[in-house]
């Protein structure tokens, strides 16, 4: 959105001109060219989709889904005043999946829990995103045994993987920011940006 500082260059005559133009616009008296110039100067224009994505990205409401140790770090992101998720719009942890946008799978996914998670994911309304937090939710973590599903992406589409055991709250916040960029349509190219490796992405 474009903004002009109120007062312009400090010229009081300038302000008066703009006030009169605003009055003309509101009364419907502006010529079409003038109207377009007016809109470009004073009103932000964007596509509806971008606005929608911006709104969705800046207020992702997570579902309360703590499974194990990563849940404690997740609650630290939300609860502790140091790493505050409220500035990203994500402090409202909704308990009902119907009201939540994003599910942060924090913790190890056992075989008994996996169908439950799938049902909850199905109950969420579109658009929904999944952050797989921690090593246990992304792969099996350190527990490569009979009792765990080796990664949430075996039964859910995952958008962002946050590694760590447990990941620091800053790492989870970085994951949320990456998700926000992804929603806004600016996927963070990450290492590909640094090493100029564009063109190596897998498009599924």
């Amino acid at each position, binding site marked *: 959105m474009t903004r002009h500082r109120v007062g312009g260059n400090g010229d009081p005559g300038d302000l008066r001109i703009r006030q009169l133009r605003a009055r003309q616009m509101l009364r419907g008296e502006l010529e079409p060219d003038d109207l377009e110039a007016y809109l470009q100067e004073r009103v932000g224009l964007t596509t509806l989709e971008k606005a929608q994505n911006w709104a969705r990205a800046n207020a992702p409401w997570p579902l309360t889904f703590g499974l194990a140790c990563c849940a404690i770090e997740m609650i630290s992101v939300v609860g502790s005043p140091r790493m505050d998720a409220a500035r990203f719009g994500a402090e409202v942890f909704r308990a009902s999946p119907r009201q939540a946008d994003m599910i942060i799978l924090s913790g190890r996914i056992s*075989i008994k829990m996996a169908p439950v998670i799938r049902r909850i994911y199905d109950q969420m309304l579109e658009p929904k995103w999944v952050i797989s937090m921690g090593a246990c939710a992304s792969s*099996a973590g350190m527990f490569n*045994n*009979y009792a765990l599903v080796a990664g949430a992406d*075996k039964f859910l589409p995952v958008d962002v993987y946050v590694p760590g055991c447990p990941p620091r709250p800053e790492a989870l916040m970085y994951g949320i920011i990456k998700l926000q960029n992804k929603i806004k349509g600016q996927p963070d190219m990450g290492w590909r940006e640094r090493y100029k490796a564009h063109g190596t992405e897998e498009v*599924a």
Partner: protein
Amino acid sequence: MPDATGLELIAAGVRERLGDEAVAGTIYHRGQATLEVAPDAVHDALAYLRDDAEEPFEFLMSVHGCDYFPEEPRLGVHYQLLSMQRLDRLGVRTRVGAEDPQVPSVVDMFSGADFQEREVFDMFGVVFDGHPDHRRILMPEDYEGYPQRRDFPMGGEPVLFTFNENEMPRWYE
């Protein structure tokens, strides 16, 4: 902990009460005393130790199992007893084979054994006679197999490296 002689006295007391074949042995290792009893004498032995022994152990702190594969008898069930008055601990152990692992349940004496015996059943397959709610507790209820037995495979996924990544089916196939 009862020291080695104290353990022998306890064993003698149990033998006197329940017969010679009730006690299968005593182990005193690193200051810890373990009394090994025959499987069908477990309930009576714990009752004796709780109520009638000269130095009673009134509280059951833990029931847990162990698989001693390949030694026979294979499955062991351990009971950890505690006496708060005398600040004393005693371990009671029983071993059963895998073909017919039946052990009397002690839930009627110590109601805290409920979940713990279910866990031993779930993980090792030891059947506790007289348990009111005998079903799996940690694994899904239709799971087959007893995971913590030594011959049960560890499970899990093989780690993907470049040499085996073409043999492992990926999730999108």
